[in-house]
């Protein structure tokens, strides 16, 4: 029989303090019983006179006298077996689909352990998503962590669902881990429907911490999810795609705990260790040497006020291997997916595209489209000042190129799937609207092989 401690010393936000606790381990999980209900908490600080516990399900209903607390002796563990596929769990990894507990072949600490850099395999295989702006310009690589930076009301969920549906992983040993943190019920429902429609539901594990679920619980939800992902990828050798949404809600939960601990904040009240904490999640993506299996992460976050310099997107992009940025302007123009290409980047693409991977012209086409579109943006700014009619002839060509680029290359419908060949050809057709002298990022050999001057819109239309 384990010892139970009656009562608490202090309650402050999500934190409670116990005294007189013997033999407690740092970061072990405790069970607090209040009025017959159990809440879980984690020991986050130990002193001779006090044991500070962060309560995951909130401290509502707790009083200094009405609790009984028990040490479990372990950090948070996740039960694991292949039966976890197809299951729906709450934010603490407990099944909520009425199908009973998960049979545990293995149990693992949800905090995981860092992958040894010498044990990693550098990811080089691209995943075709069928979306031109991603495949062509920010290619997703298996084992990459590539977040979607979005804003409130932008169609990030649609895009993520489309990627899952179209990504050429079907037929293989693949799985999806979907981690919801602080999102609305509708969003979770939307993903579930879309997984059902694309017929992958039995390959999906869903972890749901919804908007009305305890805030602090959010801190463990992605850790449970990633522990499952590691099991599927490195024990069962599957290719796992992890979608985590919304990382901003996650970081806010962290901020809440930090401020109850009276920690000195850095920017916007977020704790100084936000970077390290986020890294402890994102770095769990990757591949291992001499092993099948991979973890690809697509975290989704909403940028408060669409501000990319906000600490959450900023620190995320400092850790992830690029970012796909959605923009309100494109969205308002009715472009789906509204991917703003200039700030978007896939860092692993350089090693996974081109000859032997996609097609030999891919790096140059991408480079040229980026450079030409950057020029479009400059000219648009000028046009806003002097008027489009006053632009020089060549600048007018750029304006037209820009419009068509958004209309035919970026925009595509929710169920439209383009292969790599099609995307690259589309790129060349668009570049045909510019005089060859403007293609300053392109090798002459490729120009000779692919460039055709004087495109017209019909060609574009045919190309999609």
């Amino acid at each position, binding site marked *: 029989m384990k010892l139970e401690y009656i009562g608490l010393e202090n309650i402050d936000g999500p934190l409670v303090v116990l005294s007189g606790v013997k033999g407690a*381990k*740092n970061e072990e999980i405790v069970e607090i019983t209040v009025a017959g209900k159990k809440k879980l908490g984690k020991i986050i600080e130990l002193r001779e006179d006090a044991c500070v516990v962060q309560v995951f399900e909130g401290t509502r209903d707790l009083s200094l006298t009405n609790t009984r607390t028990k040490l479990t002796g372990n950090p948070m563990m996740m039960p694991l077996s292949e039966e976890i596929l197809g299951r729906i769990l709450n934010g603490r990894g407990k099944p909520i689909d009425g199908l009973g507990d998960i049979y545990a072949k293995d149990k693992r600490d949800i905090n995981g352990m860092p992958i*040894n850099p*010498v044990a990693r395999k*550098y990811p080089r295989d691209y995943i075709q998503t069928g979306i031109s702006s991603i495949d062509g310009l920010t290619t997703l690589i298996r084992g990459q962590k590539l977040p979607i930076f979005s804003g409130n009301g932008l169609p990030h969920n649609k895009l993520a669902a489309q990627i899952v549906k179209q990504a050429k992983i079907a037929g293989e040993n693949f799985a999806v881990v979907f981690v919801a943190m602080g999102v609305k019920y509708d969003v979770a429902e939307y993903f579930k429907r879309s997984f059902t429609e694309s017929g992958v539901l039995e390959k999906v594990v869903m972890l749901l911490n919804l908007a009305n679920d305890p805030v602090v619980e959010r801190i463990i939800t992605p850790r449970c999810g990633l522990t499952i992902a590691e099991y599927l990828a490195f024990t069962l050798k599957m290719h796992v795609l992890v979608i985590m949404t919304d990382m901003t809600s996650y970081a806010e939960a962290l901020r809440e705990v930090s401020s109850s601990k009276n920690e000195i904040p850095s920017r916007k009240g977020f704790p100084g260790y936000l970077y390290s904490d986020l890294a402890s999640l994102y770095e769990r993506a990757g591949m291992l*040497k001499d092993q099948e299996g991979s973890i690809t992460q697509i975290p989704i976050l909403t940028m408060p006020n669409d501000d990319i310099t906000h600490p959450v997107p900023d620190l995320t992009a400092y850790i992830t291997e690029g970012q796909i940025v959605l923009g309100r302007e494109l969205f308002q123009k009715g472009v789906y997916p509204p991917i703003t290409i200039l700030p978007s980047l896939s860092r692993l693409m350089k090693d996974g595209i081109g000859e032997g991977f996609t097609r030999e012209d891919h790096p140059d086409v991408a480079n040229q489209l980026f450079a030409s579109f950057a020029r479009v943006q400059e000219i648009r700014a000028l046009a806003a000042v*002097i008027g489009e009619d006053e632009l020089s002839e060549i600048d007018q060509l750029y304006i037209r190129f820009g419009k068509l680029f958004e209309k035919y290359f970026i925009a595509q419908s929710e169920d439209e799937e383009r292969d790599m060949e099609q995307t690259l050809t589309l790129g060349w057709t668009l570049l045909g609207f510019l005089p060859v002298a403007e293609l300053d990022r392109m090798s002459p050999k490729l120009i000779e092989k692919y460039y055709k001057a004087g495109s017209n819109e019909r060609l574009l239309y045919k190309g999609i």
Partner: protein
Amino acid sequence: MVETMNNFTTGYISGINGSVITIHGSKDFAMREMVIVGNLKLSGEVIAIRGEDVIAQVYEVTTGLKLHEPVIGTGQPLSVTLGPGIIGNVFDGIQRPLESIMKLTGAFIGRGIDVDAINMTKKWNIDIKVKKGDMLTGGFVIGTVKESSSITHQVMVPPTLKGKVTKVVPSGAYTVGETIIIIEDDKKTHEISMVQKWPVRDPRPFINRIPVSKPLITGQRVFDTMFPIAKGGTGAIPGGFGTGKTMTQHQFAKWSDADIIVYIGCGERGNEITSVLEDFPKLIDPKSKRPLMERTILIANTSNMPVAAREASIYTGITLAEYYRDMGYHVAVMADSTSRWAEALREISGRLEEMPAEEGFPAYLQSRLSEFYERAGYVTSLCNKTGSVTVVGAVSPQGSDFSEPVTMNTKRFVRSFWALDKQLAYERHYPAVNWTSSYSEYIDELTPWYEKNVNKDFMVNRTKLIALLQEESKLMEIVKLIGSDILPDEQKLILEITKAIRLGFLQQNAFHEEDTFVPIQKQYLMMSCILKVNDKAKILVRKGIPVSVIKKTGVFSTLSKMKYTIKNDRLESFNELENNLISNLDELLLQYEG
């Protein structure tokens, strides 16, 4: 309650807060002493002593530690093990080889691992250089060992020892731990082997500093030509996410003419270390013609590894660099990223409840930064060899805001400053070094070298190039408002020539076989070719020939492509290229005049 066990101080854990623990039970712990923490035997370091409370940072995750578990002092400060076997290795922040850790705990890093920093069983062939009766002082070379095909290791007397040789082994194969000489000093004898320890937070001593005078040639035009760094100098690369800090440092590590590279991945991505490990053994050092890995040392404390060891990693790296400097090598240290190191300081400082200065960083941030960069330098070592440590630090400003504390403080202590620009990165102009806000304070010191070794005109031409780019940025302010169509032709020419400079000279594609590394001679020839064309074109414009007509000859686009068309080993082709370009322009002039 002081318990002694083999003279080691023992105490017990009386508080745990993240990576920081409080120790009670002994007053004998010393500041900066390494300690062994808990039943798991985690390693830690004493970082504060406040009355009864001895406070230590723990280099490993503290999950599962309990109060009252023992803490044992080692009597030693955090030190690195120095000797043959360091080159080509990958260490974590406290010099534990990651390969050995993998052998013990598999693909994921476990805890409480006790591994030797360097291989203690391998035998190395040492060529002994001293004999019985010799008087040796600290730093004196005892013998040499071929450590890798490009590095000859000088086995030196530890800096703190001196004495007369009373015993010496013959040249031959020994493990690093075996005694190779015994020296006697004041009746005390010291057994010396091929390894020595050195506390990472103390700079290694040398005889004197030598003023810097040689550039670290990196093969990257915007660095070597525009904003060079001296061997023994300091430089910082600040830039927002994705602007190219890591790429730049990888390029430096690959192509710079240092003898040895110490690459510190400090709180950054695991895959970036993996890519070095996969690429470097296959790449050939242009100088020694040997695989790059044979001159490279990696320190990898990635962002998900414990934060206290991240703090230490910077010191571990620079100490290894100083050690090889002492042997007479030119060592370049790449620290990616110093911001993550500063954040580690901040996190630990927060747990110590210290009074924060700006943005939660401790007030000693700037002194720590200056101490770190101060360890760079060009020196005469204790064994009278000249060597250098060059330090290049990446800075990752939060929100890409260069006025944040780490960038601001770093700027005070470095002399080359390469500001990476988000806008340029968006345009995929790489390296995204902003040519108006970057600078090098080494120009004066390095001018004689460039004039002697490259060309008398080098710096004059560089100044011209910079002047053109400055004029361009002034013009662009106008262009933004009225477009370029109505500018006078002299100004249009500036826009065309600077476009060629940007595309053809400043942009350099790290993934292009030919362009990834460019010899300094080629950099000069490219620059001079651009300037000659500019001079000629100016004459044409003065004669009334419109820039649009000059443009049609294709001279400008030829300039932007010459980096690809002229191979690095065919520099004589520049003559022909220049002649062609000039005669194109001459013909045009004739047509106009005729």
